[in-house]
């Protein structure tokens, strides 16, 4: 739809940009699909380990600690898979924006590239501020 839209609102010489836009959408769609299946799989493994370990979800949950993920996964502890899954959940939309930024920059669409970069800047600011408050 948007690719067609570009054809109607841009001169024919912009056909290459329209093709790039179509490929951006396709790549973004695949990234979202793959990302979603990946984090659902991680959360599912974590949940299965919770059940096997007799964990009660409504009891105390482990505090989110990225530095322990590797060790927890190596020892097949639920917390590691769940933390990695949650990171994948919040990172997938940002990954989609990053792919769009690269696509728009390569296609010479400066305005959309700038908008993509600003969205990533807001997300980076979220991380920085939240870490600052948590510290």
């Amino acid at each position, binding site marked *: 739809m948007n690719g067609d839209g570009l054809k109607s609102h841009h001169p024919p010489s912009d056909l290459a940009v329209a093709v790039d836009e179509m490929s951006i959408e396709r790549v973004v769609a695949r990234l979202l699909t793959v990302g979603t299946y990946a984090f659902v799989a991680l959360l599912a493994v974590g949940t299965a380990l919770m*059940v096997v370990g007799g964990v009660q979800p409504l009891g105390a949950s482990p505090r989110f600690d990225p530095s322990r993920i590797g060790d927890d996964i190596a020892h097949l502890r639920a917390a590691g898979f769940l933390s990695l899954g949650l990171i994948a959940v919040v990172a997938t939309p940002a990954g989609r*924006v990053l792919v769009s930024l690269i696509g728009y920059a390569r296609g010479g669409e400066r305005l959309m590239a700038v908008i993509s970069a600003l969205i990533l800047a*807001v997300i980076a600011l979220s991380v920085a501020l939240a870490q600052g408050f948590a510290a």
Partner: protein
Amino acid sequence: MWRFHAEGGRGPLQANGVIEVLLLIGGGVAAGLFGSLLGLGGGILIVPLLTLGFGLPLITAVGVSLVCVIVTSGAAAGVYLERRVANLRLGMTLELFTAIGALTGGFIAFLVPERFLELLFAALLGYVGLTIGRRRDADPEPEIDTSGGASGRADGAGNSVAALEARLSAPGYRVRRLGFGVAGSLVAGVVSALLGIGGGLVKVPVMHVVMGVPLRVATATSNLMIGITASAGAIVYLLRGGIEPYVAAPTAIGVFLGATLGSRTAHRIDLRVLRGLFVVILLYTAVQMLLRGLS
């Protein structure tokens, strides 16, 4: 108003733990199913489920709900983009402002009293329930504007806005009143992070009614946007310890299953019956949330 508690220590396949996991998955399935069939994110149901059903604090429920909103978006937005229904350019332009709103709302949520959020959520539930109850089966599409309309200004700042609106448009419709879209997106972002919803309740009407985007495109584009909106808020919650992984994981899996099931069975279900049931649930939940906020 019940909550399961362990009697004694933890052990392999402890019955209560398994039941809790199954209940959270089941609640997630119901929220995801309703949400996908009625075009809403699951957040509007997840938060009451976790607070009223499982007795969790509202701030915890909001954190879990934001995770579920991203899951819903990821499952649906990819399909909408593949089918070329969602408008990626429009979505990215507006989500810059929803992200700013969500970042702001994420911090406000930790500062305001929980009672205030509960009353706000009760008002939201009541509003949504009444809106859905009064909705007609087929809302009229906005008049298609191919002449330029409000975008046809040819001087100064209006010219650059008109040019941007034209770039964001697609065949069959022309985006207009971008300024209102920006303002609506900021509001949607704040509300999303405060209450753990996707914000589609604000974005879809703004895009459809105010900006002239067809309903189908507005819904699909909103679905794409709620991922970034919820993500900006969820990062704040996650890093501040506001997301409980043991609750979030089973609920999110349930939402994913429910949303997937809903998208495959939508054509077989009588939406009028479903809508009526949903309105009753929403209004009942609104009263419960109101009582909780006032108690």
